[in-house]
């Protein structure tokens, strides 16, 4: 662990200026991942720029287009239990509550949730090579212990998965990440926010080093009537997903008119394919229809030994979650399987 300096930013401008002065400076919000990474000697900030004084990022506000703006500094729990989120975006609420623990969700922020690092064992072990931690050093997971690892979108350099539950629901909801940098503001669709590892697995996302997430904006469509988050893991609470599925459906006269399916625990980012969703249009929500969508969504999936089971597990989870989405009231705490 290294020592570091500290600055509490009073304005967004001051925060962005503070991050730009030294490449080793880092923002801190909730700190639940950053402080852990620092204690494991995985990150070495020169100065932490504390964002907790930026009150303008701590609100949830309705947008003129019918959407909802989630401030980057609102805690995960405050978001999940917000009355508008519970009513109009229950998929997001349930997904957030399936992650971490109450204590962590009280500190962890919406912006920070997107920026948490992988829980790959080799990334966390400083004695191991890891292309994400030390580019060019190698990836022991490919031929090692890879039960948690990716089956889709991986590269010869990295088979890590993104650990966030929240990001999986945000992918299904087609959220937009608003960011501010020295050049001003820009919007990043959630599908373009996280990235695949390719030859640069050290980069988890497309945010520039000097950019700050200010909010996550949800579109008007929330799938409140038909949605489900199914999280499959080694114990019923406080574990990362082996496979998770966020499903949102709109139905008319018993047929699907709109579908969104995002899968977590299988790739370096939440996994979505519009072609799989299009295949459900005008179909009855049957196991066969969701099975056909799963085949498109999971096409090309590759196992690395310990994670081979994820391919069939993901397929079955997509089918099961399609049925669960028809009756959201069947869902239980922690997004445990039910029906």
């Amino acid at each position: 662990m290294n020592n570091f300096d500290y600055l509490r930013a009073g304005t967004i401008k001051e925060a962005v200026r503070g991050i730009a002065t030294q490449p080793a400076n880092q923002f801190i919000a909730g700190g639940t991942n950053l402080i852990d990474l620092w204690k494991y000697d995985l990150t070495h900030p020169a100065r932490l720029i504390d964002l907790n004084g930026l009150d303008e990022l701590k609100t949830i506000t309705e947008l003129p287009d019918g959407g909802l703006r989630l401030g980057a500094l609102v805690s995960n729990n405050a978001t999940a239990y917000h009355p508008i989120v519970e009513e109009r975006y229950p998929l997001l609420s349930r997904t957030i509550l399936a992650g971490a623990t109450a204590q962590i969700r009280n500190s962890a922020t919406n912006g920070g949730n997107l920026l948490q690092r992988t829980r790959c064992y080799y990334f966390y072990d400083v004695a191991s090579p890891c292309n994400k931690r030390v580019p060019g050093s190698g990836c022991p997971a490919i031929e090692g212990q890879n039960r948690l690892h990716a089956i889709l979108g991986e590269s010869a350099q990295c088979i890590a998965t993104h650990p966030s539950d929240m990001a999986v629901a945000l992918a299904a909801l087609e959220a937009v990440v608003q960011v501010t940098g020295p050049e001003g503001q820009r919007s990043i669709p959630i599908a373009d926010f996280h990235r695949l590892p390719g030859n640069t697995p050290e980069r988890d996302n497309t945010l520039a080093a000097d950019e700050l997430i200010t909010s996550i904006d949800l579109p008007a469509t929330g799938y409140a009537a038909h949605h489900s988050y199914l999280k499959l893991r080694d114990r019923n609470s406080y574990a990362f997903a082996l496979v998770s599925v966020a499903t949102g459906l709109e139905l008319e006269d018993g047929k699907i008119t709109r579908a969104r399916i995002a899968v977590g625990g299988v790739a370096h980012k939440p996994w979505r394919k519009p072609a799989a969703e299009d295949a459900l249009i005008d179909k009855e929500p049957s196991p066969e229809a969701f099975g056909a969508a799963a085949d498109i969504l999971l096409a090309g999936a590759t196992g690395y030994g310990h994670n081979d089971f994820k391919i069939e597990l993901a397929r079955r989870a997509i089918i099961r979650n399609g049925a669960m989405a028809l009756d959201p009231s069947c869902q239980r705490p922690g997004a445990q399987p039910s029906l």
Partner: protein
Amino acid sequence: MPNRPDPPTRAVTLTVNGTARTVHVAPWVSLLDTLRDHLDLTGSKKGCDHGQCGACTVICNGQRILSCLTLAVMQDGAEITTIEGIGAEGKLHPLQEAFIAYDAFQCGYCTPGQICSSIAMIEAGHGNTREEVKDLMSGNLCRCGANTNIIDAIMAVKDGAHE
């Protein structure tokens, strides 16, 4: 990683169990270490120091948080309640009474975190069923395996058996 010269300590004022206390700490000192080493409040326990066990749970501005995963400098001005602040002299908090009545601990190391966590859960109005309480208390591990009795004690307080 070359070590840089230590930056100056910061004055941090915390209202702990109703009393304002000012400490001078380096930026990297956790809230947990501040409570234990600077304020002599050793009720909050250091189990894993990585946010996995919940033994360090305190109530910060009304919310249960892990004091090992936040820095004291980030909490300047905060109101903190630790296990030392929940009962009164000669009068235990209802959850403390319930933990005794339901035999909800063996070694006791996780107990301060369990009690602070459950108080904040109840005050937030969460955990309406036993199943939900189990899920919402999963951030507090008990290696002695008293979990069933811990949930019994919490449910008894929620049901009004211990006022």
